[in-house]
């Protein structure tokens, strides 16, 4: 069963556009938006299982320079109208 996670990110202020470009290229990131407030961006990640979620963080996101901090939430259920 696919896992959906929401990642809030803080960037180095001089690297924002480069980080955004690198995040855009990741196929696991389905939605990406720049924000104002406590975080600089929100990314919606979709992966097949928790192992893949671990992989995207360790092998991809941790390699991107300019990401200062992330706060990730796993989505249990989504409701829309």
């Amino acid at each position: 069963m696919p896992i959906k996670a929401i990642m809030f990110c803080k960037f180095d202020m001089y690297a924002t556009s480069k980080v955004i470009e690198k995040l855009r290229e990741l196929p696991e990131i389905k939605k990406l938006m720049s924000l104002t407030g406590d975080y600089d961006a929100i990314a919606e990640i979709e992966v097949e299982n928790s192992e893949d979620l671990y992989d995207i963080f360790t092998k991809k996101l941790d390699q991107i320079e300019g990401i200062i901090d992330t706060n990730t939430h796993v989505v249990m259920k989504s409701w829309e109208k």
Partner: protein
Amino acid sequence: MQNKLIYNIIIANILWGFIPVVISGLFDEVSVITIIFFRFFVCGLVFLSIALLLILVNNRNPLKEPIPLNIFKELFKKNREFYNQKFITYFIILGFFGIILQIIFYFLALKLTSIAFVLIGFIIANIVIAFYEHGRTEELSFFKLLYLTTLAFSIGIIIFVKAQESVNFSISGLLYMLLFSACITFFHTFVNRDGYSKKEIKIINKNQYYKLIRLFSKLSIMFLTGIGLMFAFIFILYLIPIQTELTIEIGRFFAEISNVSILFRSEMLFLNTLGTIAPYIIIFIACVYWNPYNLTYNQWSSILVVIEPTTALLFGVFLINEFFPLEFLIITLFLLTLSILLRYVHESSVKVNAFLLLDQNRGTMSRLPFKLLKFNGIKQIDVMVGSYDLLLTIKKNSIKDFYYLIEQLKNLKEVKSIKILHINKINKV
């Protein structure tokens, strides 16, 4: 173009723009009431059949969440967005005053005046709606003021042109045009006041198809109950011993009602198929599959609503030789096109896309999402594990409207804290 579904709204408005041109030729031979009866009764039945057929097809597909027929019981629940009246009452009122009476007055005004003159009714309605929305929630930005000024100027030009042509004018025509304008204002003001119930939200989240079925059902109920009320309305008017254009039309209607062959006249066939069924189908598809990160469907509808009267004027002048000197036609078309652009700039500049991060009080997880989804502007709710409990995706028409929503949410006893994150830019969807 941000969204291909915008074309659906444009095509539907162009098709509606053809209606006065096609139907004007029928007014001398067939009563306005007969045309309306055959249009809305037949199309109401068609839409009801489509809704039931879609339910049948859906429920036979084992891969899709079945839609129970008892969903129609929701019609008898209270609609808190419409003075706590039942949903069925809301649909009947909207169907009769917003659709049937609107079209009766529209056709009567068309018959007694001209397409260009009735265009004023559309524009007045747009101006009134803009001011009404400003009073409620919308910002009256610089571009909105320019938009309204442009519309007001186009009214001035049409009145100036039509004042030179004394043939197609009557006081009763003016009255019907104003009544049409009042009805269309009523319709646009109240048309979306029917939020989903908890049961419907559960169905939609398992089967998006339900939204389409709901739209067809809603429209068929409005058409058919509107026609039912129309009978009571015209019967009462018929008994009143005062002769007006409307009572003459009612008299003709009672004489013609058994003549089903009217339904097969080319004008009626156009009106029912290309003037009603086709535009509503493409509009509903746009509404259901709208991308939530662009301007909302309602915002685009309000931007493009001017296309209908504009094309009606254009077709009227070029296809049935309506009096409108070319230089004034060019200026009017320019102003109306400009009004579309100004409205777009206004809607784009005042819209608010944001996320809200909510912490909820313990024990409220099962009921809070449904409570939240009843608020206008909350498009999606993600229930999460982490520092925050809920992520709300918000789309609002103005910052004033957005902060009003925040105040409403703060008053909910289930909500512990709210954090606002405004969306600056959509980088990937």
